[in-house]
């Protein structure tokens, strides 16, 4: 167990360093390819319905948070305007809600965009992985200078199925993975802060795009408007104003 493995210096020159260099170069290349493939229309004309729905939600939220500042009559008429079942601004017919969801998933533009993004991410990764696997699999490429617990075996010795090798030795395939995930900091140095190689963030955006469904927020807003109680604060304001004036006069 404690026996030292001697690593050939040729491994350093022909595996360790080239692998890192190749990974960096591929990252840079991917950045530029993604830049080229990005849809030329930076700000496509938004759907009028979407714009309007967003604005309605904002206005309804204002009504909800500021309700106590307007007279009861004004509040009631607005509430009806937003939430009535026939043509209220926030009312979404059932069929339409389903249709909207279906339309979102079948929107060809969105799918296309995502495919492009995915393509620029997956294709080079598969290729480099295949390349690494073919040429450099199954041997130890480096040794990290500190001991680690056995748990790290899966991470550092991918491709070596020996239980007796010390965990601080890194297999070549694991070196590839370490590079893949660890080079983000370097890329943001080379390519500027908001570089396209930030895979994790891209994934989050993708999820967010699907999560925010405007029709959903409409009906959620409607529900919270329905249960709100109108409590006009202005009568209290008169007393507050008296206090303010008294304080002012005392000075």
């Amino acid at each position, binding site marked *: 167990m404690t026996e030292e493995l001697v690593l050939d210096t040729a491994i350093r020159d022909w595996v360790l360093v080239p692998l890192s260099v190749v990974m960096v170069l591929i990252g840079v290349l991917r950045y530029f390819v993604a830049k080229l493939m990005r849809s030329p229309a930076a700000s496509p*004309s*938004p759907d*009028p319905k979407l*714009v*309007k729905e967003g*604005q*309605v939600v*904002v*206005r309804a939220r*204002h*009504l909800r*948070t*500021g*309700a106590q*500042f*307007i*007279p009861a009559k*004004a509040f009631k008429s*607005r509430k009806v305007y937003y939430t009535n079942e026939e043509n209220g601004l926030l009312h979404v017919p059932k069929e339409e809600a389903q249709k909207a969801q279906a339309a979102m998933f079948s929107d060809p533009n969105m799918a296309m965009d995502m495919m492009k993004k995915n393509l620029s991410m997956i294709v080079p990764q598969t290729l480099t992985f295949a390349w690494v696997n073919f040429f450099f699999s199954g041997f130890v490429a480096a040794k990290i200078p500190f001991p680690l617990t056995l748990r790290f075996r899966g991470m550092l010795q991918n491709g070596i199925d020996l239980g007796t090798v010390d965990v601080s030795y890194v297999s070549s395939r694991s070196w590839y993975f370490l590079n893949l995930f660890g080079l983000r900091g370097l890329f943001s140095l080379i390519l500027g802060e908001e570089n396209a190689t930030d895979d994790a963030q891209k994934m989050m955006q993708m999820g967010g795009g699907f999560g925010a469904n405007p029709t959903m927020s409409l009906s959620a807003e409607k529900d919270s408007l329905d249960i709100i109680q109108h409590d006009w604060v*202005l*009568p209290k*304001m*008169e*007393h*507050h*104003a*008296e206090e*303010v*004036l*008294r304080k*002012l*006069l005392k000075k």
Partner: protein
Amino acid sequence: MAAVATATAAAADDEARLLRLEEQAEHGGGGAWEYLCLVRKLRARRPDPVLRIGLELLNNSSARSRLASEQWTLYEQVAVAAMDCQRLDVAKDCIGVLSKKFPGSARVGRLEALLFEAKGEWADAERAYALILENNPFDQIVHKRKIAIAKAQGDMSLAVEYLNKYLELFMADHDAWRELAEIYVSLQMYKQAAFCYEELILAQPTIPLYHLAYAEVLYTMGGLENLQTARKYYASTIQLTGGKNTRALFGVCLCSAAISQLTKGRNKEEESSELQSLAAEALLKDYKQRAPSKEALITNMLKNMKLS
């Protein structure tokens, strides 16, 4: 409340910095570009100094080339400032440079249309805006410009129509609501104006000016219920401004006087609060401090209203 206070403090801070930089740039002390950036950031409207300082920077070719791609922003800024100052020749030159650099750009198109507007060629301006809207029907700035054209021609009903159409889509834009409210007031359509002010109060409940304007509209409409509501909003203005707003103090007095006039003879359902007498006192004190010569006037007026 604390958030509002810090926001106003920050705004005052920025304002002071702006003025300091302006002073410095005007006297050739450098910082011209910083000043222009700050003006842009704060959206301050200071066309005179911007035109002078910006033009100086543009005419200095070495300074201009140091700005690299930022110089186009400068051209735009100077063009708008020049139109504000009616220096249409300067504006035309700037826009010419920009349209040569960015042919077919909507942003330059907007500037060109703005130039038509500055010259008073309304039909041309409208045609240019219509062209931009064809490509991008949701250009808020262009919609607003169209409303401005209608207003500049004095066609208030058309402006109202455009504004209503705009607000149907962009209903969370409180600046537009404010514009509409002011137009309605000028057209004496108080009921509609009251609706707009309600909308503004909803959007930004801590701004005392909206409460004040709403109260004034209600007071103008008259009627017992409206007067009582108006008094409440005057009171909230007093609370929000800490009693520093003279208009609100007067408003409370006037409302109370009007209410007591209307309910005279009938038994008073609403017990009269101390508010009006306090407001009258505050008014008196204020006048004593700041305009002693007018004190007699105010005492007389308050006596007429039976408030002191």
